[in-house]
């Protein structure tokens, strides 16, 4: 993974260090202390504040639910069930959004996620694949997702296509291929193990929620605790600076789209399990759901900034809105308008922050230079 040759120990020799040489033991102790601190605190104060705001929105939505349907919320069994329902509803898009968040932080966009989910789902549910059993289906879905993600990555990083164009083309092609393979039919999954992923629970919690939690946790660690995550932020935040620091920007971009594709493969299994079937038109417009969730979660569309937790909260907010409208029997048209409003509000908040930031910078420059 690392671009650097492992010669870290020689670093100190080249320091100009007019100050007295540092005691290595002291450095190590400091590092240890800092490490212990950083593990739970994280580095993004701004991100934490934003996420608290999202949790606030979530609380408001739940309060509205309680006020509008006190009869339902009066039943604690129903409430627990409803929480799990919301999480299940969020699970598939949530997994796709984790991949999308990496791509957007890395300065790109992936419009093909819904199509990849459909292609992977269809591929995993053909009669031939199903004959290999659950293992074969999972293998097919993950491999197809990864492969299409790699195609995206190659087109963008080595073919130098604009991400928007490349993934749009892959969207169209993948849906077409899915329709071709499925002969435009709905392919029923008769594999009880796969279907069981959506219906079975462990300790009272659906397996889908565990999968979402695992992907989110892995995404969080990958973004915040690994060199891969660090490179993602660098490549998206300032590709030229990353390149001039010796980071292989193209290869990393390729990996980001492959990661997104892999997430789509996982999501394809989950969605197939939920619907007991797959078809070329499935996961319709998931790309928009994922992008919207990432944006309201605070991921900057221009890249370089974003959090996995924010994206997760974005997805959960959307599925809570869907749930809220469902339990009140309100039309989906109104629901979509509210979702659109929330996206606009989130972007406006971002812009205001950006504007005040640039004003701050302008003032700063005026006074210090």
């Amino acid at each position: 993974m690392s671009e650097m040759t492992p010669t870290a120990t020689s670093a100190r020799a080249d320091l100009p260090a007019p100050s007295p040489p540092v005691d290595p033991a002291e450095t190590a102790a400091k590092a240890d202390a800092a490490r212990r601190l950083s593990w739970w605190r994280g580095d993004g104060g701004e991100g934490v504040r934003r996420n608290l705001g999202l949790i606030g929105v979530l609380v408001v939505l739940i309060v509205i639910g309680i006020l509008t349907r006190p009869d339902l919320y009066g039943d604690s069994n129903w409430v627990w069930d409803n929480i799990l329902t919301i999480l299940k509803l969020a699970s598939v898009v949530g997994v796709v959004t984790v991949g999308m968040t990496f791509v957007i932080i890395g300065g790109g966009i992936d419009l093909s996620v819904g199509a990849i989910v459909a292609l992977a789902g269809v591929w995993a549910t053909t009669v031939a694949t199903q004959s290999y059993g659950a293992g074969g289906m999972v293998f097919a879905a993950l491999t197809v997702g990864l492969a299409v993600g790699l195609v995206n990555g190659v087109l963008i990083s080595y073919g130098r296509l604009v991400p928007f164009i490349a993934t749009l083309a892959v969207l169209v092609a993948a849906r077409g291929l899915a329709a071709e393979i499925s002969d435009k039919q709905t392919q029923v999954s008769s594999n009880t193990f796969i279907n069981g992923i959506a219906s079975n629970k462990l300790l009272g919690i659906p397996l889908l929620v565990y999968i979402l939690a695992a992907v989110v946790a892995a995404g969080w660690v990958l973004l915040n605790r690994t060199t891969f995550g660090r490179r993602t932020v660098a490549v998206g935040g300032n590709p030229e600076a990353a390149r001039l620091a010796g980071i292989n920007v193209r290869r990393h971009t390729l990996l980001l789209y492959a990661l997104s594709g892999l997430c789509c493969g996982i999501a394809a299994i989950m969605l197939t399990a939920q619907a007991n079937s797959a078809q070329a038109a499935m996961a319709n417009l998931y790309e928009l759901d994922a992008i919207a969730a990432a944006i309201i979660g605070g991921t900057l569309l221009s890249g370089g900034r974003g959090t996995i937790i924010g994206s997760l909260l974005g997805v959960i907010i959307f599925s809570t809105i869907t749930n809220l409208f469902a339990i009140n029997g309100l039309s989906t048209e109104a629901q979509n308008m509210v979702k659109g409003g929330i996206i606009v509000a989130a972007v406006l908040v971002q812009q205001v922050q950006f504007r005040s930031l640039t004003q701050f910078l302008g003032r700063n420059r005026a006074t210090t230079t």
Partner: protein
Amino acid sequence: MTQHSRDLSRRRLLFGGAALSAGVVLAGCTSNETAPTAAQTKAAAAGGNADPGKKVTIGFSAPAADHGWIAAITNNAKAQAGAYSDVEFKSVEAGADAAAQRAALSTLISQKPDVIVLLPYDGKELNAFGLEAMKAGIPVVNLDRAFPDARAYRLQIKGDNYGMGVAAATYIVAQLKAKGVSNPVIGEIPGIDSLELTQERSKGFADTLAANGLKVANRRPAEFTADSGQQAATGLLQALPKIDALWNHDDDQGIGVLAAVNQANRKEFFMVGGAGSKKAMEDIQADNTVLKATVTYSPSMASSAISLARLIGQGKGMSDLVELQVPKEIVLASETITKENAGDYLKLGF
């Protein structure tokens, strides 16, 4: 060769082999052993109109299939045409929208068909084409999506969307009465809500329920796909902790609806489907799910359209009718399929 490089090359080989086999396995996985469905064609029986007559060239166009129903329309038309020795079948891909279909149809006209069978993207947008073809002396058979102008077609054959809602509600009302349920909770999962056909279906359903003093407690639209059906149903089940009856407009999305019902472990209600897919009929026959009935909107209309187009081309009438020509409009009745008659309808399932 050094040890190191040999190791490396072997690893590469292993990896390459793995990649290769993955490719082979995946490629193999695309095959679908779908049995050809000849069930919906009408065998050319001996005597009468079935006797080979004047050679008729039938041009056919339908939207690209994005759904099982449309796919069945095209397949049925092709299969029915194949059943006649005196029919030449010329099909053109309709492309992605009404404009593309119009362009495709103009190439069809140039091939001088005797009759055109057409399922338009949009009846209004292709009305002008119907007029033009009729004026040029080519009879047009409109399938399912009506032209507003009566001069734009020779024959219109379509399903009854409103009637579907009526049939579903009628069945539900009868069942609830038989069970003696008072104040029943009725749910509805329509298809894409913005389509006129969905609105007609829902209106037929609501009107009939209202006539019996009932109403829909909650409706969550899906998108004619199984995954959207699953999500819509999950929402509906969560909103209605107890349900007595549920109408799902479309059997394709019904796969997802049934999955959601199973996942929520709900059994207290019965469900009526829509359209009449083979899988739905099998489920009804097996009687091991909440799905107890489905109301048809059968793609078999495409087979009938080809048969009638042939008669029009040959200038014959329908042999059971007194009239010497084929009638101008045929609206299929929406039939209700239950456990009792599912066996009869199975061959019409798509």
